[in-house]
Each structure stands twice: as structure tokens, then as C-alpha cells.
């Protein structure tokens, strides 16, 4: 692993130089350790073509089936129209994106290299200096390797496989081949096709039967030279009766020079297993975040998505759960925030395809400064999925008269024993609440932030402590300068 290729989980902490400069820099100092390709100087190219896809595949020394899969996906991507619904995606210029180099964007080498606003944010978050450097990725490499190795040993002992997708394809080819793309086929949607064609990095987790992983597995602690792009691919298989909590995250604002992030996440919770997948997404506001997340829950399995979307220019993400086995349970907790220039179109889907399955979707959204949040969801009960139960609850808070909130819940029921409910409310911050808090000496901003934090509390209480604290702090930061 070359020193310049030390990138944390998502290629998140990236120097805010122009992409051009960035690439010059990279092609100069590029020492990425492709196995079969040691001394070629990599010349990044814009745009997407078969050649680019072939190159990605060959540089990764992938098996032939994956190469073919990528090429086929590229065809699907080219054939499919852009979605006509949801957010405005007309700003995406597919020809102007580097599909390959993105995975090699390097990290800041020292604290001063980090963009001003990121440093500022961390100052405001009150994170200690050492931790800041760590979060900034500056010293993350060393420290996280330590942590990573420690965790890795523990995981090895109980037989849990936790690695990046590229390594998994190399080290566990059969497992990957068996499950890759089975929940989200390449032609599922345009962006899943794109991901399948150019994916790089992402996490691979396999939890053996009956194993309970006590610590949340955080992508953050995994150093991975080959990662991490805007097109990461994650696959989690929780075998029978196992438990795992995966936290994908950005515990700090993310900065990226690129403009498109399109991940695919597939999760299988086998019989009696329980998987929780937590995301705190805080991309900078020049990122199109178009992610396909899908889980299958088999008999008596439990699948939980905890999905916080605080950043990005556009987010379109609807984590879904296919309840495929009798008694399976699914839950989606979604928080969306949209500030100036942002459109967050989030939600959740539950497809009941087996009897006695239950699902709960809870969505909380906050929009301000002209931001637009949306809940878009689907609850579907297939014929013969008798005695399905589902409840959907969406609440939206609109903080000023320029902002907007939309709710598009789809309920489709093909079985007469199903019981489904949906409720939503949209409101502003209660004046009496504000008045009370301000009469106690809080400023309007503080009071508003407090009310918003209370509003999203049902979600934050489900987060690991440090993430909950951070989400609250982020909300407070977002509130700054909002009112009065």
C-alpha cells in the first residue's frame, strides 16, 4: 500500500482542490498497487466507455464473470432513460465524470491541507484536536490501522469476514459470485447499472450462523487502499441466527471534488438473523447522492435501516426490505434534512412476500432555506402474504416560507388479510414551543435547534451514542443563521 493511497472508507476526506489539479497531483504521485500493473502511469480519462470498464476490471485482475457483468451493466446503463420522477438530475454530466480515478483520490496529508470549512465544522463540533486530525483522515491511517487490526483479530476469532469488496472478490470468489447482484440486478435501475459497471470498493461482510457481533462494524475503521469511490458496492450476508450492526459513516462532513455518488448495497438476513445498517450521510452540497439499497429478510429475520441524510445536493435513496420468509420483520428509520439548494428525496420500501411479516417505516424530515425534502415510499403486500402488518409514519417540519416538503407514499395491497396504515403530518415549529423556550432565555436559533432535535429524537435514539451526539450537533450547525 503506497502512502499516497491511504484513503479511508469512502474516499471521504478529500482535498478541496479542483479536480484537474487533483488529478495532476495523483498521476504524478500515483503508486496504487494494482497487482498486475506495477509501473504504468495512470492517465485518467473522463467519460464512460467499454474501454474504461475493461480497464477497471483488468486493473483489478477480476475474474471473467465480473468483467462480463460490468460490460453488460454498462449496456443497461446506456439503454435506460434517466428517471423522470424525483429530483432534478439534469445537472449530472456523465461524460464529464472520472469513473476510475475517483477511487484513487487521495487524502489530505496534513491538517492544514484540509478545506477551511471542514476544519471550521470540526472546531464547532468541539472535537478535540487529536480527534479532529483523526477524523480528517490525516492521522487516521496510522490510528485506524491499529484499531482495525485489533477489531480484525476479534472478528477472525469468531469467523466473521469483514473486508473490502475488491479483496472479497479475490479472497472469497465463490461467496461473492453466489450473492453479488442477486438482490439488485444490474438492470434494476439506471444508477444500479452504472454502479455495477464501474463499482470499486465498498464493504463485504459475512457473519457465520449463530454469531453475534457485539461491536458495530464501522466502515470507518477499515483502511483499504483499493477503495473507495463514489461507486462503492457493499454486500452483507448474515447467516442463520446471526447478528450484525454495520455503520457506514461519515462521522464528519465529507468533502469531495466529484459530483456523483452512486452506491449499491445488498444485504441478506438469513433465517432468524438480524441486521442493522446505519448511515449518516453528510456529503457536501455539490454531490448527487443516488444510492440503491436493498435487503432480503428470510424467515423470522429482522432487517433495520437507519438512514440519516443531512448533506448532498440531491439525494435519491429508498432503502428497501423484501420480507421473503414467514414472520420476517423490517424497519426503516429515515431522517432527512435539506438546506439551501438541497433536495433530499428519501424514504423506504417494504415488500411483503411472505405471511405474518411486519414492517414499520418512520420518516422525519426538516427543510429550511429553500431546501426540499421528500418522503417517497412503497409498502406492497403480495398475494398470499397473508396477515401482513405495516405502519408508515412521516413527519415533516418546514422551517421557513421558502422551503418545501413532499410526501409520496405508495400502498399496494393484494391480500385481504393485510392491515396497513400510513400517517403523515407537515407543520412548522410550534410558536408556543418557541415562545416557551425563549422565555427561558434561549435564543430563537437555539430553541429551534432544540425543537428540531426533539423532532428527530425517535431516530437519534436508535443510533450509537457518538453518532446520535454528532447528528444533533450537525443539526444545530445547520440551524445556525437560520432564523432571525
Amino acid at each position, binding site marked *: 500500500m503506497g502512502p499516497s493511497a491511504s484513503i479511508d472508507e469512502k474516499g471521504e476526506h478529500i482535498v478541496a482542490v479542483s479536480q484537474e489539479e487533483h488529478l495532476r497531483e495523483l498521476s504524478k504521485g500515483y503508486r496504487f498497487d494494482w497487482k498486475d500493473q506495477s509501473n504504468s502511469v495512470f492517465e485518467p480519462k473522463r467519460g464512460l466507455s467499454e474501454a474504461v470498464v475493461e480497464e477497471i476490471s483488468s486493473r483489478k485482475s477480476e475474474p471473467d464473470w465480473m468483467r462480463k457483468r460490468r460490460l453488460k451493466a454498462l449496456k443497461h446503463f446506456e439503454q435506460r432513460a434517466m428517471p423522470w420522477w424525483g429530483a432534478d438530475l439534469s445537472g449530472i454530466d456523465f461524460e464529464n465524470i472520472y469513473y476510475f480515478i475517483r477511487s484513487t483520490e487521495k487524502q489530505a496529508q496534513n491538517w492544514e491541507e484540509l478545506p477551511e470549512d471542514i476544519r471550521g465544522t470540526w472546531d464547532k463540533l468541539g472535537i478535540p484536536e487529536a480527534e479532529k486530525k483523526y477524523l480528517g483522515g490525516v492521522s487516521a491511517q496510522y490510528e485506524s490501522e491499529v484499531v482495525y487490526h485489533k477489531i480484525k483479530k476479534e472478528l477472525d476469532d469468531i469467523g466473521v469476514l469483514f473486508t473490502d469488496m475488491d479483496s472479497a472478490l479475490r479472497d472469497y470468489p465463490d461467496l461473492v459470485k453466489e450473492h453479488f447482484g442477486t438482490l439488485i440486478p444490474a438492470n434494476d435501475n439506471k444508477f444500479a447499472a452504472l454502479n455495477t459497471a464501474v463499482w470499486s470498493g465498498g464493504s463485504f461482510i459475512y457473519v457465520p450462523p449463530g454469531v453475534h457481533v457485539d461491536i458495530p462494524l464501522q466502515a470507518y475503521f477499515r483502511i483499504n487502499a483499493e477503495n473507495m469511490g463514489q461507486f462503492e458496492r457493499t454486500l452483507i450476508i448474515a447467516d442463520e441466527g446471526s447478528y450484525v450492526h454495520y455503520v457506514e459513516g461519515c462521522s464528519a462532513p465529507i468533502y469531495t471534488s466529484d459530483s456523483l455518488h452512486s452506491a449499491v448495497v445488498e444485504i441478506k438476513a438469513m433465517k432468524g438473523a438480524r441486521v442493522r445498517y446505519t448511515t449518516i450521510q453528510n456529503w457536501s452540497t455539490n454531490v448527487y447522492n443516488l444510492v440503491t439499497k436493498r435487503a432480503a429478510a428470510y424467515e423470522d429475520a429482522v432487517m433495520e435501516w437507519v438512514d440519516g441524510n443531512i448533506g448532498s445536493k440531491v439525494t435519491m435513496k429508498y432503502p428497501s426490505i423484501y420480507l421473503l420468509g414467514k414472520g420476517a420483520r423490517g424497519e426503516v428509520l429515515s431522517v432527512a434534512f435539506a438546506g439551501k439548494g438541497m433536495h433530499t428525496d428519501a424514504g423506504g420500501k417494504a415488500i411483503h412476500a411472505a405471511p405474518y411479516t411486519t414492517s414499520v417505516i418512520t420518516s422525519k424530515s426538516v427543510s429550511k432555506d429553500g431546501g426540499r425534502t421528500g418522503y417517497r415510499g412503497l409498502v406492497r403486500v403480495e398475494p398470499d402474504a397473508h396477515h401482513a402488518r405495516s405502519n408508515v409514519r412521516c413527519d415533516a417540519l418546514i422551517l421557513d416560507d421558502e422551503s418545501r416538503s413532499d*410526501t409520496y407514499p405508495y400502498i399496494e395491497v393484494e391480500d385481504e388479510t393485510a392491515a396497513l396504515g400510513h400517517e403523515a403530518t407537515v*407543520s412548522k415549529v410550534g410558536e408556543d414551543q418557541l415562545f416557551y423556550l425563549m422565555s427561558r432565555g434561549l435564543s430563537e436559533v437555539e430553541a429551534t435547534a432544540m425543537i428540531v432535535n426533539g423532532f428527530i429524537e425517535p431516530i437519534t435514539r436508535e443510533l450509537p451514542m457518538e453518532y446520535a451526539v454528532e447528528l444533533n450537533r450537525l443539526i444545530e450547525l445547520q440551524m445556525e443563521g437560520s432564523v432571525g
Partner: protein
Amino acid sequence: MTSTTFDEAAFELLPGTSEPLQRMRKQAFEEFRALPIPSQETEEWRYTDLSDFELSFEPHVPSVVRTTSGQDLDGLGVMFTDLDGAAESHADLVERNLHTLVPTDRTKFTALHGAFRTGGTFLYIPPDVRVELPLQTLTYLDADGAATFPHTLLIAGEGADVTFIDRFASPALDRALSDAIVEIVVGDGAHVRYVSIQEWGSGVTHLGIQRARVGRDAEFRSLAIGFGASLARAEAETVLAGAGGFSEMLGVFFADGTQHFDHRSVQDHVAPNCSSDLLYKGALRDASRAVYSGWVHVRPSAQKTDAMQTSRNIVLSEHAKADAIPNLEIEANDVRCGHAASVGPVDEETVFYLESRGISRAQAERLIVTGFFQEVLDRVRLDEVRHNAELAIQEELGEPATAGAR
């Protein structure tokens, strides 16, 4: 006249009308020819497939009976008449309002309506006039293979007050098309109650659009009862255009056999300080299918909006299928908006209780459905209207649920 594909020849055969209306008609005909049959690819038509729909019918003027409950309308200056007649006598009012709320180029079917409509109902209530008793139009169709284009144009002047019942019925037919448009202008401070009872026989494809514009401090209450037709797509839209307006939209439907209902609603808040409330309740039996989709739009200008939207569905048999999509699009912040939707079976505990009292399961279900609909009917203020609706429901449900029922 034989079946037609609504071509030039058929268009030429239409009886003449006033010059401006003829122009409107001509334009609609061009639009009809240019527009495609709505595709399921679009969100609006996602749940109703008309791709194989054969547009070949005999244009037909159904029998229309207008009843005034014995009131002297002339004395009040109220116009309650045939739309074509009104186009002569009240040319200005008709030309100014016809197809302004539902433009002919909205879909291929509204264009068809605009081109081939003859007849229809025109109701005008002058400012500050109050019509005590409900007025009613019964549109009866009994010609197989016919296409009919019912149109209601209701204009309530400032401060006027009226209740109007639009009733559509036919026997079972092999095949017929009802392509209906209802346009309602509720003047400032006016009160309008509009009830539609759709009891087309099987074989009828009903495509209806109802759109009301509610003025300042005005009140619009609508009740839609839908039992008939093989396929019924009914859109009901209210635009709250003046500050302080109020809209209530109630719906009751019962689907059985292989009926397909596609109900769509829009509560469009343009002006501030308005409130709107929508409650649709449906029961489904056999292999029927019902879709409810609704939109609450709150425009940036519509601060202090209070809007509610509720869809409740009871599914009574294994092969029935219900979908609900209650949407909110909120662009103002000082608002209170909510929606709720549910789909579920009859409550087994309630059935059990009734059965334990010696009531058969079928009867218990009827009682429960009657009670389920009662919540809507209880909100209908005029006894006569409520009674009408109750009768229609009882008829649909079969034998009276209890001896005491009307």
C-alpha cells in the same frame, strides 16, 4: 348512426351550435386527434390501462331529467337548463366558463368530450340567491355501444347558496363510454354542495373529471358516491383560489365483481388561510380493484393552510386489491397538513361479536361496512342528500343489514 371512431365524418354530423362554441369544439377535435391515449408509463395513469381501449362508440345523448324539488327558480333568477340552450341564452357566462377549469387539451378524453359533447347541464345561481332545496340531474343511458359526454357547468355567484345532485345511471350494458366533466365555480362567499352518485351499469367505462374553483370565504362541499361501471376513473379536484375558502371532499365507493376504480383527488391550495378536508372510504369485494391517489398541494402563497386527506379501505375478499397513494406537496411553512391511509380487512373481533349474537357472517360484514360508510354520511348535513346516499349504499350492499334500516 352507427359506431364511429370519432373521425371527421362523425364530427361533421354533430348538430350546430353557436359560433364561439363551434370554434372551441373544432379546436378540441384537433386536440383529440393529436393526443395519444394516456399511457400507463405516466404517473397519472399508472394504475389504469387503457392501451387496448377501443375508441369506437356511437355518440349518444342520454335521457336527462332535471328536478327542482318544486321550487320556482325563474323567480330567483336561477338558470337550470340544458348547456346547449344556455349557450344561446347566456352566451357570455357559458363562453367565459366552459372548459376553463377542465381544458379540453388535458387528455385525449377531455378533448374527445370537448369535440363531441352535446347537451349537459348548466346551473347558474345569481349573487346572494339561496336555493333552499336540492336540485338534481339524472342522466340515464340505455343504449349499448353508446358514448355519452355528460357535462355539468355550475356557477354560483357571490354569496349564493345551492345544493346540486348529479346522478348517473344505466342498466347493465355490453359496452359504453361515459366521458364526463364537471366544472364548478364557487363565487366569493358562496356555499355549494355537490353530490355525484355514479351508478352506471356493468360494461360502462366511466372517465370523469370534476374540478371546482373556490373563491374568497366560500365553502364547497362535495360527496362522491361510486358504485357502478366496469371501469371508473374519477378525478375530483378543488382549487382554493381565494383567501379563507373551505373545501370538504367526501367519497364513498363499493367495488365488487371485477370492477376497477381509480379515484384521484387534488386539494390545491393557492390562496392563504384556507382549509380543506378529504375523506374517502371504500369497500372491496370479489376480484375488484380500487386505487386511491390524492394530492395536497400547498403553494408558496398559501400560508396558514390547514389541509387533511384520509383514505380508508376495507378489503372483504381474497382477490380484491386496494392501493392508496396519498401525496403531499407542501411549499409553504406556516401550515398544518396531514394525511392518513389504511387498507385492511374487517375487524375479526367485531365479526366474532356479531356472530356471537346470532348474526350471520355475511350480515355482520354488511353491518360493519354500513357502519364504516356511516362516518362519511354523518358529515352530510342535508337529510335528503344523506337519505339518498344511504339508500344507494343499502341497494349496493344487498338486503337491508337490519330490520330497522331504511
